[in-house]
């Protein structure tokens, strides 16, 4: 996996976990899954973050609006924007009372 893709996956994972912790959804274990996929669109590394907190669809939630000036800038909402910007695939499912947020990074196959 190219370093650039690994860095994007690292950023997405960091923001996804910060989101779980920041919204107080970390009282129960957080499960992480890493999958290596390869289909017609090329190779993909996909991470799924599974937590047992209240339902939260990061693919639909609106991030903070972009402030027009520094004076108007407020914290929050940047993590979701970063996940959407840096992932190539993004999916959310609520399964068995748990949030499953998956994000993947694709890269061009070697050769």
């Amino acid at each position, binding site marked *: 996996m190219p370093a650039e893709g690994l860095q994007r996956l690292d950023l997405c994972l960091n923001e996804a976990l910060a989101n779980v912790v920041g919204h107080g959804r970390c009282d129960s274990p957080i499960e992480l899954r890493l999958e290596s996929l390869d289909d017609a669109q090329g190779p993909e590394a996909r991470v799924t973050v599974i937590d047992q907190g209240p339902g939260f669809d990061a693919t639909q939630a609106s991030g903070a609006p972009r402030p027009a000036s520094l004076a108007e800038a407020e914290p929050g909402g940047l993590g979701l924007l*970063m996940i959407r910007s840096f992932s190539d695939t993004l999916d959310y499912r609520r399964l068995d009372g748990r949030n499953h947020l998956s994000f993947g990074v694709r890269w061009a196959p070697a050769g």
Partner: protein
Amino acid sequence: MSIAFEDVSDTLRHIQLSGRLDIPGTEAISLKFTNLTASPSRRVVVDLRGVDFLASIGIRELIANAKALQMRGSRMVLLVTGETAVAKTLSVTGIDTLIPMFTDVAAANQAALA
């Protein structure tokens, strides 16, 4: 995560950040960074060329201190290496439109002092 500074002149300070500006990295430098940007007489160039990972918590740290500087009538600008993940992160989040971002030291200094 490390933080260092250089007072280039009586009116300009460079703050160099290096490492990962993630949750532990930001917590490690937060107090010193706030203190270093609190100088009433110096504009600030924050040198991010040594930062290889910039998380949202690190961006919030930059915004909070840039706002505090602006409220005191001062200014912060950012110095980055072009085409890096850090530059891209600042661009996709729109932060580069709030805090001026440069890849050239002389241009950053000039903008900070303008």
